[in-house]
């Protein structure tokens, strides 16, 4: 049994493990929110443009809240954490390294991410770290809308004409290996387990996610290979992310100490 309170003092290894966990979730939300916000103004239909933008903004909002929990834990500042690291300091999953691509790519990535995030949030809502558990609970309620939307688009593309199905299947297959990295092993996994900060290990969450998504994806894309998350699943980077990092640090990094 765990007692959900953040007053139970955590030793340094536990704090480090929790900080790492928070950073991974926050960075995932931050980066996917950035990529999807790029659709603002240029989505396929005006009504859909507004919907996609809302979802991207929600992700940035979640990132902000998570960075704030982390900032309290490590005596730091949310904006400094979000905007102030070198490219190598980010801990988002490899799936989020890629630019938004075309609509099929974005829809595919969003569906894979939302399903994975849902599994993770369900676990985090039972974390012994109270601020995280509460935040995860709130995020899950907002994610209901995201899931509805992602499912709606998955069906529309998967049930579309053959060329659309093919395009969509190709995106899903291309994203599949990197998608596993949402569940990449964390250095502090043992600590997280020991203190109930993450109630189930990453590999168990990964298995839950697999069991949920494979039946949905198989009719669209055929059998997908079994791929284990890798140790650099949250540290390897691409040129796309280098570009993104350059963009979001362009103004924030232009004058040290300035307020914007």
């Amino acid at each position: 049994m765990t007692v959900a309170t953040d007053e139970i003092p955590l030793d340094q290894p536990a704090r480090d493990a929790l900080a790492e966990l928070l950073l991974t979730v926050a960075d995932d939300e931050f980066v996917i929110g950035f990529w999807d916000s790029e659709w603002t103004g240029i989505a396929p239909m005006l009504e859909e443009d507004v919907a996609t933008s809302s979802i991207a903004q929600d992700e940035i909002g979640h990132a902000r809240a998570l960075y704030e929990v982390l900032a309290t834990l490590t005596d730091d500042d949310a904006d400094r954490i979000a905007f102030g690291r070198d490219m190598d300091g980010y801990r988002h999953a490899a799936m989020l390294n890629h630019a938004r691509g075309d609509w099929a790519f974005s829809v595919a990535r969003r569906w894979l991410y939302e399903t994975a995030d849902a599994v993770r949030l369900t676990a985090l809502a039972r974390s012994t770290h109270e601020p995280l558990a509460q935040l995860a609970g709130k995020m899950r309620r907002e994610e209901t809308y995201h899931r509805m939307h992602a499912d709606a688009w998955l069906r529309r593309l998967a049930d579309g004409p053959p060329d659309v199905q093919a395009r969509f299947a190709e995106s899903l297959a291309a994203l599949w290996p990197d998608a596993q990295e949402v569940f990449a092993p964390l250095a502090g996994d043992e600590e997280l387990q020991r203190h109930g900060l993450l109630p189930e290990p990453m590999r168990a969450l990964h298995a839950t996610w697999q069991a949920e998504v494979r039946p949905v994806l198989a009719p669209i894309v055929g059998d997908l290979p079994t791929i284990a998350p890798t140790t650099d699943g949250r540290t390897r980077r691409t040129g796309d992310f280098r570009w993104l990092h350059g963009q979001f640090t362009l103004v924030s990094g232009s004058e040290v100490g300035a307020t914007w």
Partner: protein
Amino acid sequence: MVAVVRSGQSRSTLHDMSSHGERVERVWEVFRQEDEGDPMIHSGNVNAPDEELAIHYAREFYGRRGESHRLWIVPRESVLELDDPDLLKPPLDRSHKKPGGYIIKHKLEAAKARAGEGST
């Protein structure tokens, strides 16, 4: 003049309906309720190919700021419209149906005055 009752049909499906497309974009009217107990008020309309996306888009345009307690989303062709003034603003006197049709000021003054004389 014959009373004109129209349905939203004429404007509900957008022009250029493709002959080979079985799905077309439709217009959906959105009504919103600001707070619990308030009336549903027509607020605008969205284009969407089906109910599911119509609900999403109605939420976006009339609820993304948390400004609505409830939304009704109605296909435009389901809305019947009546705007015939012969039915809605018929010309003969109907003042007996409204509060403004009962102005008692002078009669009340007269009655009070009479009652005042009688009591001395």
